């Protein structure tokens, strides 16, 4: 077995794992979810899901990753293969390649928007807001007069078409700005550079630079937002914004009727979904990073540390920027509309509009988008790594060549997202919403029931610097699978009844050609991955794998 790469330092590993987890979800999705799902009351299901599902799954994925890594497998097909000697195990592992790679297709494009908006903000190229705000404006007026120019700007940027532009808002093909397209390639080039340098000299180095910068940027923005004071005469303050986000609302409106938030399945689904999204669980990326650990490296304390860094970014920093700023400028009613309009409306429409009203707003807006860019960049690198590890470990392809193959596939997938209307929203649904709970369900059953719960528990505690309370063993063996089945069933139910959340810029008409092109792309990619797995484990390479696994055993 050839020597696999290793992390150079523990702090580098923690920062890289935190970079994997900290993304747009922390600063945009979380505050929006809290505001739309009961405010402070949402934190109860959120922390219950964190405790019963987030932490157990995270430790499980770390343990699984290290177990696979020391046996020469950095991706889930190989890991599943050595943990369950069944012919189908490796094929189930396709999820750990499919999900991160598809997320990479569209997430890298979204990362390029953040870089583009940072540059445009710094250069003063964002829309202007002519009027001064006053507290008498209604939410509808704010939306029309203040936010609309920024909404149109984003839609023009990505070529979605808008009322203000001459472009069609309904055609199949999108026409993004040339600048947006160039920036996408810049993001690909940056990722290529980092990935080609390897785990320690590329990914770890990036994390050591980007993560401290991200923390500093976030803290600067939090301080700036919370010290805004009363910016609109007669209006509200950022403290009112904190009040809005944290005030528990025990009864909220769902579909025209009032429901008790703790008994509302949609709220629990939102909380569980947020935990998945924010911790990057069920994606194959944590396992892959953990596969570069040594046999006696700690996974318990280190794993918990990365989770804690993510939670700090989300609960403390994420809740203190976008929503408090929106309340200070637009009031609570308009902020509620903004939060319900989704992640992108909050980040790319509301925030630049807010910054255009404050001193050094251009600079602050550039910092905001730079913060989002660092968060997204460290995540794209993490999403790229499982497929790279698969090519390197299972086909013995040198890293440079593996990066080339990955980029070729990535660029094809991304072009579908860039140019086909609704494509990235479809990909997001299958890989970002439905995929992770399914993957997590497969791995928790495989690890805790087939491989053996006690065996994995001991495996996780090898070299550990923290002994987890036995509670987590029972949680991951009995409670986590039940929660995952409930989440998955809930998502399928929402899909069938058509009540799933819209995550994109616009709704997705069920029969549109763009939707079918995206689904076709996903299907073709899934088939390609299955074929590659078949080749890896049944051809010449497969023989090597079998003997390698036997040796390891």
């Amino acid at each position, binding site marked *: 077995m050839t020597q696999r790469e290793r992390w150079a330092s523990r702090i580098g590993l923690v920062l890289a794992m935190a970079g994997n987890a900290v993304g747009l979800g922390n600063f945009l999705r979380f505050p929006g979810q809290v505001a739309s799902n009961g405010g402070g*009351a949402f934190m109860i299901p959120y922390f219950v899901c964190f405790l019963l599902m987030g932490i157990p799954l995270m430790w499980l994925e770390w343990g699984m990753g290290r177990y696979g890594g020391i046996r020469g497998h950095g991706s889930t097909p190989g890991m599943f293969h050595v943990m369950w000697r069944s012919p189908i195990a490796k094929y189930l592992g396709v999820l750990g390649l499919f999900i991160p790679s598809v997320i990479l297709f569209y997430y890298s494009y979204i990362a390029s928007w953040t870089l583009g908006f940072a540059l445009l903000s710094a250069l003063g190229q964002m829309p202007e807001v002519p009027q001064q705000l006053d507290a008498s404006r209604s939410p509808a007026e704010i939306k029309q007069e203040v936010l609309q120019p920024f909404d149109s700007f984003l839609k023009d940027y990505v070529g979605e078409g808008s009322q203000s532009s001459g472009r069609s808002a309904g055609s199949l093909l999108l026409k993004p700005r040339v600048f947006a397209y160039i920036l996408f390639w810049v993001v690909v080039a940056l990722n290529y550079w980092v990935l080609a340098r390897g785990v320690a000299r590329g990914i770890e180095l990036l994390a050591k630079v980007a993560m401290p910068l991200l923390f500093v940027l976030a803290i600067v923005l939090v301080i700036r937002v919370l010290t805004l004071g009363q910016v609109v005469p007669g209006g509200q303050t950022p403290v009112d914004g904190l009040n809005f986000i*944290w*005030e528990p609302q025990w009864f909220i409106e769902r579909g025209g009727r009032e429901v008790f938030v703790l008994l509302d399945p949609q709220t629990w689904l939102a909380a569980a979904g947020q935990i998945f999204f924010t911790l990057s669980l069920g994606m194959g990326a944590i396992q892959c990073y953990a596969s570069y650990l040594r046999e006696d490296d700690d996974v318990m304390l280190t794993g918990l540390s990365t989770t804690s860094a993510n939670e700090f970014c989300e609960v403390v920093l994420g809740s203190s920027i976008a929503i408090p700023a929106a309340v200070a400028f637009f009031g609570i009613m308009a902020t509620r509309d903004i939060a319900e309009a989704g992640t992108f409306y909050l980040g790319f429409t509301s925030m630049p509009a807010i910054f255009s009203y404050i001193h050094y707003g251009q600079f602050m807006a550039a910092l905001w988008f730079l913060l989002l860019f660092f968060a997204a960049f460290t995540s794209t690198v993490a999403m790229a790594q499982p497929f790279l590890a698969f090519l390197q470990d299972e086909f013995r392809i040198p890293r440079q060549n593996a990066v080339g193959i990955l980029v070729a596939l990535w660029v094809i997938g991304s072009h579908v997202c860039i140019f086909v209307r609704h494509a990235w929203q479809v990909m997001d649904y299958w890989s970002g919403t439905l995929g992770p709970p399914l993957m997590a369900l497969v791995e928790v059953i495989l690890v805790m029931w087939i491989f053996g719960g006690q*065996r994995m528990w001991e495996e996780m505690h090898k070299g550990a610097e923290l002994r987890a309370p036995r509670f987590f063993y029972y949680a991951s063996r009995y409670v986590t699978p039940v929660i995952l089945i409930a989440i998955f069933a809930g998502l399928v139910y929402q899909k069938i009844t058509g009540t799933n959340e819209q995550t994109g810029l616009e709704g997705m008409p069920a029969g549109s050609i763009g939707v079918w092109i995206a689904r076709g792309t996903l299907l073709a990619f899934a088939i390609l991955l299955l074929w590659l797995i078949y080749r890896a484990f049944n051809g010449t390479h497969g023989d090597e794998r079998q003997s390698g696994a036997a040796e390891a055993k």
Partner: protein
Amino acid sequence: MSWKAMLFMAFGWAIAWALFLYCFARILFGNHPKVPAESDTHSSDTAN
């Protein structure tokens, strides 16, 4: 800010801060003792 909002904010922030400080203090300043292996009382959790 209402006391209820403050209470819930304190709840969320306390968990996030406590976890963060505990973990990073142990990683940065701890002496990293490994936990002893659990006594081998389990039996047949085998897959392969």
